[in-house]
């Protein structure tokens, strides 16, 4: 049982049950590094720019079950939805919540007439990769050392074509890996 509603600033005071979890990747995305200086800016940036792409799922007892944040960007046929963060609290895993949240983001992207949805995931995060594949995402390319850490870790850039991309041109995998600086 879930209530989906827009994420609000006040949620930041109480989403610790989700964010204390190390799986929450929001703080290690490479290309948005600047915003993590003070993580708060990161959330507010999204709230200011793409509020419609930031949803939180709440349980009947008022706990935050998880959230998804994303954005729409790109030009021409590269106009796409992007999943920036998807996180589900440990207590509410295995309920298909991630699937619901992903479906929701894809719907929003459809409405915005995007060509595809993409996301980055650690190559080691097998569970997540399996789930995304089940939802129809393919590995479009590998981004080398995308996640900084010790050692740095590669990311898969995964994609799923939306209905506007009739010829499914956005999901033809690249044969060579790319460097983070080449990712637009």
């Amino acid at each position, binding site marked *: 049982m879930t209530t*989906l509603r827009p994420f609000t600033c006040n949620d930041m005071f109480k989403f*610790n*049950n989700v964010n*204390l979890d190390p799986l929450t990747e929001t703080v290690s995305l490479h290309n948005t590094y600047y915003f993590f200086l003070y*993580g708060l800016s990161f959330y507010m940036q999204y709230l200011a720019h793409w*509020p419609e792409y930031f949803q939180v799922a709440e349980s*009947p007892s008022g706990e935050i079950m998880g959230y998804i944040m994303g954005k729409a960007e790109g030009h021409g046929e590269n106009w796409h939805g992007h999943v920036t963060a998807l996180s589900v609290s440990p207590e*509410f895993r295995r309920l298909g919540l991630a699937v619901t949240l992903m479906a929701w983001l894809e719907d929003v992207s459809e409405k915005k007439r995007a060509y595809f949805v993409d996301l980055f995931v650690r190559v080691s995060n097998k569970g997540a990769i399996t789930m995304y594949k089940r939802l129809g995402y393919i590995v479009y390319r590998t981004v080398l050392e995308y996640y900084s850490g010790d050692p740095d870790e590669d990311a898969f850039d995964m994609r799923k074509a939306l209905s506007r991309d009739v010829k499914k041109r956005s999901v033809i995998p690249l044969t060579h890996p790319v460097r983070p600086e080449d990712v637009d």
Partner: protein
Amino acid sequence: MPFYSSLDWLDNGNNKKALQEAEKVLKKQPNFQCAKVLKALALSRLGKDDECEQILESVRKEVPCEDSTLQAMTLCYREIHKPEKICEIYEGATKKDPNNEELLTHLFMAHVRVNDYRKQQQTALALYKLKPKNPYYFWTVMSIVMQAYKADDKISKGVVLPLAERMVEKFVEFGKVEAEQEVQLYLMILEMQEKYAEALEVLSGPLSAKLVSCLNPVPIRRAGLLMKMKRWNDANLSYKLLLRDDLDRWSFYQDYFTSSFHLFDEKSIPNSEEEKKEKDIDGDTGVLNKSAEDAQETASSPDNLIDSKCSVISKISQESSDCKGNPNDTIRVENSEDGADEEGLWSKADSSPEEVKRFLGVLSRKNEKLTRKFRGPYLAYLELYQRLLERGKENPSDVAGDVISLLMAYFSNFGDKPCCFPDLKIFLHLLPEEKKEEFISKIKILVALPESQFAENPQQMQQHINLIELSRRIGFHQNLPKDEKVKLASDLIRHYAHGVRFASPLHTDFSMNDMYAMIACHLLYEEWIEEKLNGNHSKTLLLQAMVILELVLSLSPSNYHAKLLLLKIYALIGAGKAAQGIYELLDVKHMQLDSLGHIHCCHIYSSGLYSVAYSIYETTLKFFTANYKDSVDHLTFSYKFGSFLTIEEFVEFRERLDNSLHYSSIVVEDWLLEILRAGNHAQRVQTMLQVDINLEEDKIKWGKLQDNRDLKVMIAWDPPDRQITPELTKETFEEGVGLLRLRSLVLHIIGAAITLSENYPISGEKTAKVTNGSESRSDKDHCSLLQNLVEELTTCFSSLGTQYPTECHEQKSLLQMISAPLPSRLFSLLRHGSWCQHLQLMVKILTGLVQQDHKQLQNVHEEPESDEILSSMSAASNLLEDSVKEIKEESTKCIDQDCDLTKRKSFLEHVVLIVEMIGVAVLICEICQSILKPLKNAPLVKKAKKKKEITNIQQPKTLDAYNKMVNHLKQTTEELKKLMETWEQGMTASMSMDIAAGDRDSDSSLSALLKDLQHTENCNNKEHKCTTPSDWFSSERKVVDKLKDSYKASAVEIRQLLAIKAKNLVNLHV
């Protein structure tokens, strides 16, 4: 070119180089504005704000219009926290160049930064007149709306909002509305005025087509508006349709029930006042309303209903299914399956319990057919049961069914998921006392795990865990006798050890079996606290809990529940360094520095780990100041992107963070700590120079302080009476406010004393001038300020003392609640009141000496004054001596084998307080010395014979007493230092004995059991990940080592600080 290289250096953070390059440019082109500003920027980053401001001021007077200069100035003003100046420079520029769109835009954003809504409005309007673009027009509208946000209701609704509304309407009339955000703003303005009918009209009209970016926006918004308009019939129907497409939306069920229940009431009292009123309101709002009335009139004769409502329904229904297209097949519910027997179901509101029951039945049947079932329909029955029970008219079981069956229906589907407990916990109170046993035994049958057997698969294990969690919530653990409680804990540990084989191979996942261990620890903690409150101190229980938690963490490093509990226990027994270790594992960052500040940041200082406390304070403060600066930028982004709905929220959020109690407290604690740790008086004066307080006036907005703590973060399965309540949240918040009041006054007093010392330069060197809040103050003013502050402190202290009598029950109940925050330091400050008396005495000595000094200069001679100083000096010395005596006793109790472990915390807390007293004494002595020193030399320096005589008579007494006090202080400091050494050794020895005791303990001891356990566990489990004996042993060792190390670290830091104080004292004789 040097100009650009100056920019580069700034970017790279090499501000010295940047300064040099900027100066080079200025040598050639002294009037190069932008280079001047870059110089200013470099200066500000080098900490020279004054010079920076001078340059900025001179450039500002030239009224620059060039973009790069203005941008650089903006950056500067932001960094020196003067956003209002940004408005000034752009105001000047736009006056010079009124047709510059870009400058006007910057001016608008500058006003946004300082929340000047009226000027925002003017600027946006000027922009629109210059370039008639939609965003500028709506910036104007939004600026008007924000004026309503701060205004009182009457004005905002009566004048401001209608103006905003008219402005939008004008645009609508001319068909100029373009963007979705503009429609959203329109709706927001209507809703703010409670013009729901008008909003509904917008949603039904052509503008609604612009709402594209959110899913299903129109039907959901419409349903929400119908609820606000109390049009229960239409609202109910809307929610039915929404639920048809989304079986799992809790908020839809809530509104569905609320509207249905209103319809029940209307039906039972057909001509109620309320209905009449509603009709009046509905009178003029078009098609939908008419049908609503129809529906109400014909509610009792359903045959008439279908025709009259058909058009509306089909409209809602169509939108609902149009907009809500869920691509996930398992989620989509096929309408065709509704079947003939459900005819009329989707066109009629449910106005009786039977109809609601029928509707839920339909949803349940849909749910049953899904491959992945939703929790929604199961929980909906429980919600219905609860609402019927509250209403008290129908028998809930007749309508919703038997409560045990309802709970079991959920459990049999979701009992193997971790969400089971959080979902069911809010409904367990529906079980009457006599049915609890039955419920639990039914679950037991379902789980089918006989005692002394272990789960065969992860599903069964999760079910079993849920069973235990539910039993605990119902209260079955609470009343168990001690032996059984401990036995249950050991059983759970067996299950835990067994369940390791089902743990996820990923380190980032929680291991499912962890919860066994967590509940075991809760049981041990619970038993430990019960015993403690009964006066028995059983260390072993708490030690065992720590060992278990360390073990859990070593196998499941991402389990934050284990971290939070372990951190709490370490903090509870004063093991600051051990707590710090866990805190680092939690990786607390940004917002959590505020919302989780109460778990560690607030307590670390009391363990004597000054350096750790200081670094956590600094991180915390950096976050708050950065946020205050940065969040303004996001506000400007919101205007830029037209996200009008977030603007009000951002403004509120910014204030909520800025008024955080935690923030204010840490600001004060940080300064106090810095002054305490300063190596000498000059450093203390230097620190005071930076303190941003106003001595006469309080900067803290007491009425606006915000409680931003997340008190729900710690998991607890305890019954409701052991859960933190809103009242308790409020009480603990107020305790925090009380603590802040005391500490803030102490800071003010110390600040005033240091400020006073500027008039008495030490050893001839003129110290930097400290003028906080006022220009040079006379000594007399200083003294009365100090006396006033001390008086205020005394009053505050005694009123808090009355409010919180020592050892009040609250603290006890706080400790009983495992998820509650630790008791505030306020209680320790109230218990050991001598610090307050001592501070009073020290201030008395200081002001006495200053006054005496003045009188002597004016040749006035009064004996009693001097006597009072002398007696204060000896009283202060005695107070300190007594405190050290007291602490000596406490220290032996700490080391004692059978002692209460929390004594270690209260011991350290008290020591830290005494160290503070010594710190204050040293600080005041430093100032006294600078007053007395010239007097001692007076006979040599001063020529007047008369004066010489007086000083000769007067001084020896005061001087002797002063020197005696300094000696005494030195002695006490050394004594405390030595005591910390003995204590440290004692603790190390005591900890070693603890292990030995654990080993020796009776068979019931958990450790014995644990050690037994691994032998059986260890066999035949090679293919599974498994706990091995070394795990248990190493955890035990880990705990003991951590505790030893922690107490040692505290003792060492305290001794180091005392050593500095002792060194200060060597030079303080006159």
